[in-house]
């Protein structure tokens, strides 16, 4: 098969046209691309003055919530006392501390040692503390005798009873033995 010169010229022209066309398309895309790669460093676009938060919303992260189910305090060693069960006397508080602290053996726990160590007292020092508490107790007992409806005296007396009972409970652990 022989190709004459006329056909060859046509073929070459077609190839040139095709190559040119393809190049133009690809160049156009590359030029567009390079424009993106080299952005203008100016903020030419005017900032809208009526900016309103109407675009995509902020999504608030919702923390997972568990249903609230009341617990039994006893499960955690918490001692619940109704108004009538709250001790009103020194003896009552002594019994309470005995139950809460001594019988529960919390002072035997190794974690208790550093706390007890910090509270160490000589026998005389401990006695002084007890005497000061006792003095305050008799002060508020007298005040309450004079006015049985004195709520502040009642409250403070309860606190002082609690403190003295706690002191008695801790005594053996915090009073350093005589040298």
């Amino acid at each position, binding site marked *: *098969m022989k190709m004459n010169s006329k056909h060859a010229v046509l073929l070459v022209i077609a190839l040139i046209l095709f190559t040119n066309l393809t190049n133009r398309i690809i160049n156009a895309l590359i030029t567009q*691309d390079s424009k993106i790669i080299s952005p203008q460093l100016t903020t030419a676009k005017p900032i809208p003055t009526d900016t309103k938060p109407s675009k995509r919303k902020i999504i608030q992260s919702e923390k997972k919530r568990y249903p609230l189910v*009341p617990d039994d305090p006893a499960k*955690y060693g918490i001692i619940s006392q109704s108004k009538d069960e709250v001790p009103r006397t020194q003896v009552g508080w002594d019994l309470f501390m005995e139950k809460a602290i001594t019988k*529960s053996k919390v002072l035997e726990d190794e974690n208790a040692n550093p706390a007890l160590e*910090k509270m160490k007292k000589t026998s005389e020092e401990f006695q002084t503390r007890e005497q000061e508490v006792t003095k305050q107790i008799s002060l508020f007992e007298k005040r309450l005798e004079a006015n049985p409806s004195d709520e502040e005296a009642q409250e403070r007396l309860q606190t002082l009873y609690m403190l003295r009972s706690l002191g008695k409970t801790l005594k053996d652990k*915090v009073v350093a033995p005589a040298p």
Partner: protein
Amino acid sequence: MKRLNNNKGMALITAYFVLSTLITLSVGFAYSSINELRTANRYKDSTKSFWIAEAAINDFIADTNMLNSGQPNVGCENNICAKEYTLNSYEIYLQKQDTASVRYVSALATVGGIQRQIQVEFPANPPDVFDNTISSGGNIALSGALAVLEVYDKTRITGTFTKSGIGTSGWFEDKQQGVSSTLTTLKYPDSNNNGTSDEFNDFVEFNRDIVSTYDPAEVVYIQSNSTQNIVPNTQLAGVKIIYVEGTSAGAGDVNVIFNATWQANQNITVISTGTVNYIQPLTVATNSRLNTIAWDDYYEPSILYSTHSGVTYAHDLATFREVFDYSISDGSVIGNNGMTANEVVAHKEFNFTNPVDSDGNVPPGFEGLVGESSGGYVSTPSAWKEI
């Protein structure tokens, strides 16, 4: 009809056939290339918009006031403030929403029509009272006999400091009186949405909501009007909140006896709708803290040497009375209605320990409990996500 007796035309047909095959292949190749280029461009635009959004978030971190109401081109609506601007000719839509416990900031960037949005969260800034050793929304009154009160770092008092008794003395490293109550108190938000904040029902709703966000294993929730006596117990290891909820204000008192936080690194908060009595406090385990929140008063008596570490918050009065020995409190004390100290031959010392951890987290139960003056952003976001 003339009959061709040669095959010269075949060359032309063959040439056209070859040419059309080449054209088809070339067009296919070009089409495929163009598609790939478009995909690459889309990917590039997407990546670019992602990083532009990230840059906008960093813009905000560099200037956290840029979205405040009143700033140029900032619009606010329903507690959301937004601004639209361009960065290197790319469109950015930056917005923020401040809630009681979390600050949200989001940046939406558009490049070549492709949008990507990044959102970060900041924990709410701790209230100012967490910077103080003592914050008293009322007066501070010291009374007793041979009693010494010593306060290191900041003491902020809305009222005044007074002392009475024989041989009492008060020493403050940095004391300011007459300070605005917004800097000395913590108020509860309007959790029950009745239009009034800081009511007893707000307190109850707020704490229920906070407690429900904790794993049930970390919470002891007691509904009772009885007094609860918390004594040391191994069952309390790992517990973060003990919430005692009475049916009315002042009910559901709590006595914390001797010590309840014997686990190292345990940060536990006792919340009561009544009063909290911390009798003979001793928090000695490494980094352990016992925080208290009382709707009513807080009392702290001690017969022997005592140490307490944590935040003490009383919606009413914080009272340190019946103190008979050296007693040290490390942390922050907040008494919305004031503070009293009553000692007998004793020495009470207060030191400041930052209750906020390095990530900006406040102790359990205090999340979202902000003072009126609280604002701004902590330096590092607590969460990041693409939305």
